[in-house]
């Protein structure tokens, strides 16, 4: 019998092709999601730069205190939460379930603190008169772009807080494995890295001197 005439068994183990990247498919999916999300953030930041460039009266409202100090604190909290997530992932990989859950919840607390600091920053600007299409200083597009970019990032942080909570609780109950903690840690680090671009583009290039 020629090879072409062999009966094909659907999903037979011997016929499945090995993963080209030697990682679990869930992890590959997370990497692909991260890449597409990175391009989404890049597009929105490019659009922001485009609008800022094309507006001659772009406002520079961020004073060192409170705005830049608050942003520095937010950066410290978010980067520190990445470190705690690394510790959680390492503990999960070493089979130390209680330490992994504990460090994941410390990460979640960091995410919640970041979100609260972000909302404080927003409320300060809103109190100064910044709205979606209006502000007291200059181009009306400032508020729209500011809230769109920082809002999209904040949604990612809140999404990450929810996902890490669900995965940590599931891992504690045995529903999820150490690999799941590692996969969601990738997402959390990504959210941290996006902030590295949001801070200079949105805040530091618009400091009040």
């Amino acid at each position, binding site marked *: 019998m020629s090879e072409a005439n062999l009966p094909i068994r659907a999903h037979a183990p011997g016929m499945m092709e090995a*993963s*080209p*990247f*030697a*990682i*679990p498919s869930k*992890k*590959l999916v997370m*990497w692909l999601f991260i*890449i597409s999300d*990175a*391009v989404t953030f*890049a*597009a929105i930041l*490019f*659009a922001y*730069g*485009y*609008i800022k*460039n*094309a*507006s*001659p*009266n772009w406002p520079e409202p961020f004073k*060192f205190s409170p705005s*830049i100090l608050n942003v*520095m604190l937010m*950066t*410290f909290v978010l*980067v*520190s939460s*990445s*470190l705690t997530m*690394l*510790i959680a*992932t*390492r503990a999960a*990989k070493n089979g130390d379930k209680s330490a992994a859950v504990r460090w994941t919840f410390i990460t979640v607390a960091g995410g919640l603190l970041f979100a609260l600091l972000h909302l404080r920053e927003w409320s300060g600007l809103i109190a100064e008169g910044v709205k979606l299409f209006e502000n007291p200083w200059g*181009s*009306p*597009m400032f508020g729209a772009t500011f809230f769109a970019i920082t809002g999209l990032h904040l949604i990612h942080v809140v999404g990450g807080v929810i996902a890490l909570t669900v995965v940590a609780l599931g891992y504690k109950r045995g529903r999820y494995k150490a*690999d799941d903690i*590692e996969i969601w840690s*990738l997402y959390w*680090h*990504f959210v*941290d*890295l996006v902030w*590295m*671009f949001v*801070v*200079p*583009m949105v805040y*530091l*290039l618009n*400091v009040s*001197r």
Partner: protein
Amino acid sequence: MSAPAIGKDSLKTDLVVYLSILALSGVQVALAYQHTRGAQLLVRMLAVALIQAGLGVMYFMHLRDEQRNLRLALIPATIFVMLMMNMFWSDSFRLLHMSPFAK
């Protein structure tokens, strides 16, 4: 199949990368209050942010411990798409003279 990524680096390495990223954030704040402005400041800020992102992706996300195939599949395509988005800029300078958002 288990992921190979975690395990090579020690907590010491993680701490060094963590402190480096924080220090680079401090550099960005210092740059913001220098006399440099405009495109030159943007380039410097983005250069620092790219170093931070590189450290994060390679050490926090452990991409350097993955197979080279994965790095080759992810990084060049992403950079290519972002470079293509860069085409926006020249048009925004043209629009500056027409002041589309100023009115």
